[in-house]
């Protein structure tokens, strides 16, 4: 059959065509395979690695903060957390019911747990409770077989074992906020805390340490299949402070309920061995979380427990400022130490009358006597002769009016007014009367207790501008040994004040405390023959009205607490070979001689009693020897 043959021939030809098409398509597959597996292989290999390798950070343990002898002030404590893993449980509610027989769970807790579980993948542990007690933990462990999916994990939380002592200095740690993020993945790891105030904040980077990494193989839903590599991090450095915890303890007790600040500075090294601000607070409460009423109590307390008064409290220095006036007067030649001024109890300037604190007046006084009795009229007159700008210039050399540069956040500048300042900020010219008021450390003038301590340290030192500091060393725990990096101290600049001028002032301060009739004679110190040189101050915090002026100024005891004078006291000791400078401010304590000087004396006695154990040459030897000497 012809047609069949034709059909057969056509079929044969078309089979070849169809076959060729299939061959071409198959070749396409092989070509594509070549493209993917040879040409693009490297790219896809990289993508594949990125797919399966997950990097997890190992957050380093935060470094400790210790005092100058290594007594721990901020540590990490083990914290046992109760966690549940939803995929390992048969039924969440049954498990939680069983758990609530051991540890009470509120409905609120339960809601949070349910919410957390819904938010995370089923194998991610969800926190039920932190800070488990030993008893709770033991009971959970015993019941473990009945509690599938319940695990206890060990974590670290920041703890301040000394509680209120040093809370203002240490600061606290807290969760990372959006603003803190800087691209460091460590900051994004869950539960990570960073320093938010105080030393915790200033030395945060050193305390943090370096994070380690774990590389694990994960599957498509992120579950870890196996660990591939681990790189341990570097624990945070230990921060050694210059503080002496024994002094902190003593000062806290001595200051008691007062709203007060006390600070002691080594006049040679600038090391702050004591920094106390009362009342204080327990920083551990912040770590646990405060109730709103506790928080309200803290911030509405008129004695402001959250403020570090040593660096952030600004007070009129009152009579503690008089040394600056005396020095400026000597340097300018406006007054020699021997020149006398007659104090009748008041001084008239124009139609204004300026009173001395002593109604009847001191009679004729020289510079040393003026210090000793804290004669206001003498210093009105000296200030008037010297002029405000010279006084301000001298005061700045002693650190007033600027931050001391101590490594703590929140330090305030105080205020040292002069003509230029008044013109710039108040747009007014300086009145002569304001110079007189400045002469006794009142008016616009403000200083922090730390500034007053630094001022006193510089008077005692006489040679250099002593700079206060809190950090003794950063100690990095290396693989072999501990490596201590003493904090670099920048060279001190000379004070530039004549020695004999300073000597007069020091003589005045000696008389204050050691000559009968001196304002702080009642609070004198004689510890194994070591005396202190001090200066009291009582600074008004209220304006005295005209009517009151006529009827007589009210006594402090008759005024409400918040209107009483601030009591101040500055001193250095020992008198013959100065080593420490102290400043004490008791808010609304009344008279500096009565309220502040005894505290300053007691603290200084303790400072001197413990001094041999703090001596750099002595700290090399073992501590037991040292205590024997000191006791």
């Amino acid at each position, binding site marked *: 059959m012809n*047609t*069949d043959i034709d059909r057969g021939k056509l079929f044969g030809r078309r089979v070849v065509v*169809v076959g060729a098409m299939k*061959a071409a*398509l*198959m070749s396409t597959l092989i070509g*594509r395979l070549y493209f993917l597996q040879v040409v693009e292989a490297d790219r896809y*290999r990289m993508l594949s690695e990125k*797919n*399966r390798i997950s990097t997890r950070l190992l957050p380093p343990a935060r470094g400790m903060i210790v005092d100058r002898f290594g007594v721990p002030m901020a540590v990490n404590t083990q914290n046992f957390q109760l966690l549940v893993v939803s995929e390992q449980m048969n039924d969440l509610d049954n498990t939680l019911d069983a758990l609530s027989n051991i540890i009470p769970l509120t409905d609120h807790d339960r809601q949070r747990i349910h919410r957390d579980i819904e938010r995370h993948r089923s194998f991610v542990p969800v926190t039920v409770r932190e800070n488990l007690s030993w008893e709770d933990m033991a009971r959970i462990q015993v019941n473990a077989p009945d509690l599938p999916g319940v695990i206890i994990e060990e974590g670290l939380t920041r703890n301040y074992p000394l509680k209120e002592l040093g809370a203002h200095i240490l600061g606290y740690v807290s969760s990372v906020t959006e603003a803190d993020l800087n691209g460091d993945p460590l900051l994004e790891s869950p539960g990570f805390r960073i320093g938010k105030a105080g030393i915790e904040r200033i030395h945060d980077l050193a305390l943090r340490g370096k994070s380690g990494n774990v590389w694990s193989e994960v599957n498509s839903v992120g579950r870890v299949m196996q660990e591939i590599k681990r790189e341990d991090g570097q624990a945070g450095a230990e921060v050694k402070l210059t503080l002496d915890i024994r002094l902190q303890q003593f000062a806290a007790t001595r200051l008691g309920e007062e709203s007060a600040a006390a600070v002691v500075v080594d006049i040679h090294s600038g090391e702050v061995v004591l920094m106390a601000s009362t009342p204080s607070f327990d920083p551990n409460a912040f770590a646990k979380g405060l109730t709103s009423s506790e928080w309200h109590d803290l911030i509405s307390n008129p004695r402001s427990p959250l403020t570090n008064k040593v660096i952030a409290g600004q007070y009129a220095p009152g009579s503690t400022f008089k040394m600056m006036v005396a020095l400026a007067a000597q340097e300018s030649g406006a007054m020699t130490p021997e020149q006398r001024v007659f104090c009748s109890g008041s001084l008239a300037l124009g139609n204004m009358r300026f009173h001395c604190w002593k109604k009847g007046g001191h009679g004729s006084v020289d510079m040393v006597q003026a210090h000793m009795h804290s004669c206001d009229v003498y210093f009105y007159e000296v200030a008037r002769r010297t002029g405000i700008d010279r006084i301000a210039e001298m005061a700045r050399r002693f650190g007033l009016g600027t931050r001391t540069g101590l490594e703590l956040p929140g330090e305030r500048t105080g205020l040292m007014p002069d003509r230029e300042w008044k013109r710039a900020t108040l747009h007014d010219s300086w009145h002569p009367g304001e110079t007189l008021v400045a002469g006794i450390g009142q008016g616009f003038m403000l200083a922090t207790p730390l500034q007053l301590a630094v001022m006193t340290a510089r008077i005692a030192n006489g040679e250099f501008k002593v700079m206060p500091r809190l950090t003794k060393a950063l100690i990095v725990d290396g693989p072999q040994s501990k490596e201590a990096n003493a904090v670099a101290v920048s060279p001190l600049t000379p004070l530039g004040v004549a020695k004999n001028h300073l000597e007069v002032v020091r003589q005045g301060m000696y008389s204050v405390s050691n000559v009968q009739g001196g304002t702080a004679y009642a609070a004198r110190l004689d510890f194994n023959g070591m005396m202190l040189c001090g200066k009291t101050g009582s600074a008004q915090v209220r304006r005295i009205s005209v009517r009151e002026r006529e009827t007589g100024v009210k006594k402090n005891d008759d005024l409400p607490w918040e209107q009483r004078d601030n009591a101040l006291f500055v001193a250095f000791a020992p008198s013959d070979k100065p080593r420490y400078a102290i400043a004490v401010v008791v808010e609304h304590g009344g008279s500096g001689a009565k309220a502040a000087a005894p505290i300053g004396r007691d603290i200084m006695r303790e400072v001197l009693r413990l001094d041999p154990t703090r001596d750099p040459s002595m700290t090399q030897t073992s501590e037991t020897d040292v205590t024997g000497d000191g006791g």
Partner: protein
Amino acid sequence: MTPQEPISLNVNRSVMPFREKLWHISWSFVVLLCLLGAIGVATLYSAANGHLEPWATRHFTRFLVALAVMLAVAMVDVRVWMRYAYVAYAITLVLLVAVEIRGSIGMGAQRWIDLGFIQLQPSEMMKIALVMALARYFHGSTLEEVGHPTYLILPAALVLLPAVLVLKQPDLGTAMMLLMSSAALFFLAGVRLWKFGIIGAAGLSAIPVAWRFLKDYQRNRVLTFMNPETDPLGAGYHILQSKIALGSGGILGKGFMQGTQSHLNFLPEKQTDFIFTMLAEELGMVGGVTLIALYALVIIYGYAMAMRSRNHFGRLTGMGITTTFFLYVFINIAMVMGLIPVVGVPLPLISYGGTAMLTLMFGFGLLLSVYVHRDIQIGRRGAYGNI
């Protein structure tokens, strides 16, 4: 290619003895299929992270059952298959309509009929039944008849009816395979090229209309195929992960059972549609090309066996079956390599799944039947006499 056969003494004999039929089976072809089945078992063993359960063992038993079905089908005279070609087509079409109606009544989108021991998928069966029906139709046609457009209306209807039903299910992959294998048969039957041109043009112009009828997920598949990297976690995820797995395999692969992408579950459906990806990730380009070569060998066998047939029905059926097989292979591999959209076509003899395997092995049974009965001549109106 085919083994040298002894010249048959009974050229036009109606009935062949059973033993002679067995003798005529291309056993080398059967061995080739067994080799592919074994590769399937090994790959599924790896897919289950080195376990025989849940896939490898069942794949093995299914293959044995399908092998028995294939040999049984091969033993049946090709004229019987030709006689019942339309009947088989009609029954399959009814089943297809049945699942469609059941689906629309609201029993869910079930595409199969559960027979207890096996789930019959009418759309799969149609791949073979349509080949048989078209081969039957064109067996009796002369070239002149094929030249008349009106003569093509009936076979076109035979194709479009199931194609539309399958598309409605919706099963884009099967519909494509039905259309393409039919096109091959039309072409082999002698339909003029320009007619394909017209149909092709009509098809292209229908795309905007068809787009409106596609389900959202089908549209997404097409769109992500166009640009998979834009949505790496959404719809483009499968294609992208498949390409990463393939590409990272390189020339020699990561080693048997060492495929990270597949074993860490980045690769979806690694035991079914994406099994080629896993194989090529673990065995590399060497493994992938070897598998493609084995498939090519199956196709060459198919061609050789079809061309040896002395009846037109046999030749058309053989070519149709081989083309269907080719389409499985090509669509699956092209899809996992990102050459065409993901349409859900398994890799023959290797992917886990019973129906596709049974369909294919039934088809290979027909192919072998064509080969075993290659010397039987069937008249243009034949297949009605005694067999």
